[in-house]
């Protein structure tokens, strides 16, 4: 690897009111290098990248970017256009593609002058095809993005950045939405790109892939860069300790005798608006003291299954029995009454009412409870005492229980939801992507609480796209693909990965 520096961040600092998001962060990036940027949620990774990309104006510090000749120039701060022009490309976790346009249109969009009558697409197409040849990134250029798989959409996003002559590519949690096989392909592509001289910063939570694919690892904690290490010298334990400042507690997992069934689905079908939210004659059983892991790539029917267990979706056929009671009214309140605790996938949309207080969000599922209300009036003292107790027990940190819930960080919002769900001692728990976007500490807390509920006798349905999480928590694994569920008889990553891709009968 050459040691030609392409990017230099010096002393970058950013405060939001009293919160220090970044404090004097230095970072260097060299040509052809893959730098992994690690850190817990709220450690300041995203803020740092947003300053690099011109979305935020740093309070202090400088950014220098090398031009094509390798000479470092200061980058005007706070200007996305300047960052783009300097060759910095960013691929966000949530794609920014127009679904009805073709891949080609999406890639070219924004680079053409607005007022021109003829469009010359031949040159653009040739350039994209050349990039695809060099990097191994493939995408069907004439197919609307809406019809593409998540992996292919991501490749379109990357092509979009490369088409704009990016020499520095920032990938924000690129593998969160991919199958293991798709992730491997992505890393092959990244390898090819770096051999062409491209430099990559990639943000991830998954230690395994960071160790496997990066050259260097930089770790942020509380807005400060706490360490930088050549990947060859690192192992999971070392990095985890750098990230959280201490050894992560191993989740102790006792072997338990499986209890009686607590959830049974018999040939349940759901007809959704699209295939993505449909289920085809699904059957499953979850017992007390058991975690059933549902592995699969997103958009294969998980939302229909989760909707069913949350009471948001009604089946078109089949039976659903929760602890000997057949569910006939598919409403969230029925499920709550039958003792089903639900951790929603999108915690901001379905989990909390952001404008209402933390304390109110903690009781929102039991407004009929005499502990919460008396003759239709809220018992405010009881509600805030409950909130104080839960915030302490579940370590919900933030500006206080009377502050709007939206001011909490993602991890603390999840802890609020955990507190609300687990306090009711549910018989059955639906945990839909419970650790997505959470840092190591909060993820470990979620895992610990799930195992605790399992020990107490709850049955748990864990839906996750993170195969490592399913493998480490689940007693039994089923794979969802195209709305159908199949039992995985193995715990082999490779085999399950193939089932996730629907490649095995």
């Amino acid at each position, binding site marked *: 690897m050459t040691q030609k520096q392409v990017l230099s961040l010096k002393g970058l600092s950013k405060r939001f009111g009293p919160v220090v998001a970044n404090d004097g962060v230095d970072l260097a990036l060299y040509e052809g290098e893959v730098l992994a940027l690690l850190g817990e949620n709220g450690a300041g990774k995203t803020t740092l990248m947003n300053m690099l990309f011109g979305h935020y104006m740093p309070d202090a510090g400088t950014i220098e970017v090398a031009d094509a000749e390798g000479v470092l120039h200061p980058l005007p701060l706070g200007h996305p*256009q*300047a960052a783009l022009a300097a060759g910095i490309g960013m691929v966000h976790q949530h794609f920014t593609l127009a679904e009805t346009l073709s891949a080609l249109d999406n890639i070219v969009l924004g680079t053409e002058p607005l007022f021109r009558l003829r469009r010359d697409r031949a040159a653009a197409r040739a350039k994209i095809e050349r990039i695809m040849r060099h990097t191994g990134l493939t995408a069907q250029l004439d197919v609307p993005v809406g019809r593409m798989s998540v992996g292919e959409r991501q490749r379109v996003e990357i092509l979009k950045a490369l088409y704009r002559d990016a020499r520095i590519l920032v990938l924000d949690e690129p593998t969160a939405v991919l199958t293991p096989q798709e992730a491997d392909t992505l890393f092959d592509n990244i390898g090819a790109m770096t051999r062409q001289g491209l430099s990559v910063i990639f943000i991830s939570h998954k230690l395994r892939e960071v160790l496997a694919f990066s050259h260097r690892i930089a770790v942020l904690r509380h807005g400060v860069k706490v360490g930088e290490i050549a990947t060859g010298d690192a192992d999971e334990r070392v990095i985890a300790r750098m990230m959280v400042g201490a050894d992560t507690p191993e989740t102790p997992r006792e072997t338990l005798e499986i209890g009686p069934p607590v959830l049974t689905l018999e040939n349940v079908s759901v007809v959704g608006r699209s295939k993505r939210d449909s289920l085809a004659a699904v059957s499953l059983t979850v017992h007390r003291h058991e975690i059933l892991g549902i592995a699969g790539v997103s958009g294969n029917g998980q939302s229909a299954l989760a909707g069913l267990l949350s009471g948001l979706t009604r089946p078109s056929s089949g039976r659903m029995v929760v602890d000997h009671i057949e569910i006939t009214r598919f*409403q*969230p309140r029925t499920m709550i009454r039958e003792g089903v605790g639900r951790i929603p996938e999108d915690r901001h949309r*379905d989990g*909390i009412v952001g*404008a209402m207080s933390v304390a109110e969000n903690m009781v929102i599922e039991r*407004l009929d409870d005499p502990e*919460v209300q008396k003759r239709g009036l809220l018992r*405010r003292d009881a509600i805030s005492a409950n909130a104080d107790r839960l915030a302490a027990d579940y370590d919900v940190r933030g500006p206080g229980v009377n502050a709007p819930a939206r001011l909490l960080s993602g991890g603390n919002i999840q802890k609020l939801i955990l507190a609300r769900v687990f306090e009711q001692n549910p018989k059955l728990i639906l945990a839909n992507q419970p650790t997505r976007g959470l840092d190591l500490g909060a993820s470990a807390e979620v895992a610990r609480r799930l195992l605790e509920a399992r020990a107490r006798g709850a049955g748990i349905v864990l839906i996750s796209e993170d195969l490592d999480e399913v493998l480490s928590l689940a007693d039994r694994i089923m794979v969802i693909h195209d709305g159908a569920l199949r039992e995985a008889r193995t715990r082999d990553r490779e085999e399950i990965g193939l089932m996730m891709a629907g490649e095995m009968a």
Partner: protein
Amino acid sequence: MIRIEPREAPSRLMTLGIPVLSALIALALAAIPLAFAGAPIAAAYREMVKGVLGSTFAISETLTRATPLIFTGLAAALAFRARLWNIGAEGQLYLGAMAAVAIGTGAIEAPAIVLIPLIILAGTAAGAAGMAVPTVLKSRFGADEVVTTLLLNFIILIFLQMMLEGPLKDPMGLGWPQSPPILDQGMLPPLMDRMRVHSGLIIALVAAGVAQFMLMRSVWGFRLRAVGENAAAARHAGIRVNRTMMSVAVVSGALAGMAGVSEVAGLKGYLTADLSPGFGYTGIVVAMLAGLSPVGVVISALFIASVFVGADSMSRAMGVSSYLADLVVSMSLLCVLIGGFSARYRIVRTRAIEAGSA
């Protein structure tokens, strides 16, 4: 280059101060059309203040004007808090007034202690029904309530004209399309001798207090806020969104209907098709100005009423058009909207990108 950035946390001072500041700026801006109208500006403002606060009569007029605006403002504020866009307060007001007239003009002979509550009950029920229908259409068929409530206003107004030419027409009215007068024992008692301000104002103030209390302290208010702020999360948490919407619709419609009762049984005594100079629509402005807070509605209704009454007496004294009042109300709404925006965002000037920085 100019950029817009969200502010981190709007301060309490800002959330309270900005509506007040906006109102003052709007008043100040009124000087421009005044100058165009050729009126001496200082004298015009003096007349305005005199018309609002200058005498017991002036104060009574202002409070009288504020009364229906408090009701319609509350109707809009509660509905909007639940993201139920009730644009139909004007129609619901007339439904309430029609029901009041139907009961109160002799159909039932009863002493005041019985008749007044009956009139109120009938008026609020009619208003509630007027909002329940579009809400059922919304939750059953997805019909946009902005459209249905707005258009219902015109249907109700035409229905009113039909009734005033038919069953509700006063046989003693010399052919005018107006209802017979409400019985004396059906009238809301006045608050002051020889003044127009009536006990509808007391009902309005109590309604605002109760609305504020219910919104913040009751389970119903909790559900309303949750549905309004995040319907998906409310539904997920087991709150019946449609049922909550329906209850809000009923309360909102009832409040608008009460505005009609208060005008017809508190002030005019009989019903005509020009009972309301757009109180239903102005109620939306009142609610927005109040930041959808029920207690705030009282203050903003008083402000808007002052502007109308003040501009009215100014225009009489100075000989300028009373449409100036509409102008000031519109400007204060615009100022508040801009002010609310500037409380949440700030505009940042950044230097232009130097050429060749790439």
